[in-house]
């Protein structure tokens, strides 16, 4: 075995591993988004048991560390007869976890839609689900966008935790490359830069969306120029 300097080969390896980070993030986004819609629908449903179920689900997934959820999925599913590998465990965990966070985000924006809309819809004879689908969600969508994009940044960063169950994404590739180069400053510095390039544009976009949504709702406050004068 040879120790090498961090060079183009190693950089390429890191970039290739970034693919898996992106794939995992997209799975979390898609899976979490779908589950989140269902959870949000339950959260505002007219049936109390559904509301409690959703509330409990959200509390559990938001109130325990995602690493523990990952461990439970990875090591524990043999009890239930499933056969996870790190990928399946990570995909399921991130989707369920994302579902809780998205559920809260979607519910928040659903709640922001004026109650009058629900009442008018009922008066027109619509039941719960069609109301949600045709009347409320379209209006809530604009409000959901900034926190959803903001949460995407969280998802990308959280994929790094999947390295701790052996999934080969960017963070794990970082430790692997470090083992053959022993140049942690360069390796982790480069990896930080890659994550930054993935996340920062999303963060900026989320900020932009937030400003666009907030334009009609807020008056800008002036920053005082100097404290001492």
């Amino acid at each position, binding site marked *: 075995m040879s120790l090498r300097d961090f060079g183009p080969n190693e950089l390429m390896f890191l970039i290739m591993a970034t693919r898996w980070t992106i794939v995992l993030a997209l799975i979390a986004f898609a899976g979490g988004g779908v589950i989140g819609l269902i959870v949000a629908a339950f959260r505002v449903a007219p049936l109390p048991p559904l509301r409690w179920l959703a509330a409990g689900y959200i*509390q*559990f997934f938001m*109130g*325990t*560390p*995602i*690493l*523990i*959820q990952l*461990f*439970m999925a990875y*090591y*524990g599913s043999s*009890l239930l007869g499933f056969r996870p590998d790190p990928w399946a465990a990570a995909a399921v965990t991130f989707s369920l976890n994302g579902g809780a966070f998205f559920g809260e985000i979607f519910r928040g924006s659903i709640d922001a839609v004026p109650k009058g809309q629900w009442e008018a819809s009922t008066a027109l004879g619509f039941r719960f689900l069609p109301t949600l689908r045709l009347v409320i969600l379209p209006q809530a969508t604009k409000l959901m966008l900034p926190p959803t994009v903001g949460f995407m*940044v969280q998802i990308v*960063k*959280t*994929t*790094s*935790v999947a*390295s*701790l169950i052996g999934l080969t994404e960017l*963070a794990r590739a*970082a*430790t692997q490359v*470090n083992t053959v180069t022993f140049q*942690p*400053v360069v390796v*982790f*510095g480069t*990896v*930080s830069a890659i*994550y*930054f390039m993935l*996340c*920062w544009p999303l*963060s900026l976009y989320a900020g932009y969306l937030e400003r666009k949504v907030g334009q009609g709702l807020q008056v800008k*406050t*002036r*920053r*005082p120029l*100097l*404290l*001492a*004068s």
Partner: protein
Amino acid sequence: MQTALQFGPVFIHLDTLLMGVVQTIQLAVLSILFGTVIGTLGAIGRSFGPRWVSWPIAAYVELIRNTPLLIQLYFVFFSLPMLGLKLSSNSAAILALSIHLGAYATEILRAGVESVPVGQIEAAKSLGLKGYHIIRHVILVPAVRAVYPALSAQFILQLMGTSIVGAIAAEELTAIANNLVMQTFRSFEVYIVIAVIYFVLVQAASLIFAGLSRLLFRWKT
């Protein structure tokens, strides 16, 4: 092969787990304290400081908030020694966690600071108060009160963030749980118990923060 859940082997080691809880709380409390101090200084520097102060602070915030905590942990623990600074696992964990929270706290508190009506500050100036006093008496408390929900939510996230410091060999609840799994081979049972413990910790923390807010922000605006 485990076909039935057996919690017995886990409960025997409850004392070890409790030690882990203590260590987790220590990490969380210390990093929250330091992180909030960093955040306060950062928010003030960002909002009121000259360009050569506010710009590096903004860069620090963007850098930390757009990179994973795990990488920040690795960097502090493995890279700093190469640059001369060797810290123990726990110290490195506290440092990285504090720097991490500091960035988020800076942003949150900055929003709070900027939400204080300009009129308040102008009134304070017209009364002859100088910078430091204005910050301390006029800005700080309303700013914190304004963003208290966001801030305490971030603190709770910090508590859960402590679960990954085992990656640099710091000891806290999750790392101890992993040790226990190695010993007893009862992975699912151990993690269920750990999940419950974290859940209880989070609920307790939420209650504490709610109580604190009633204590601190007794008067109306």
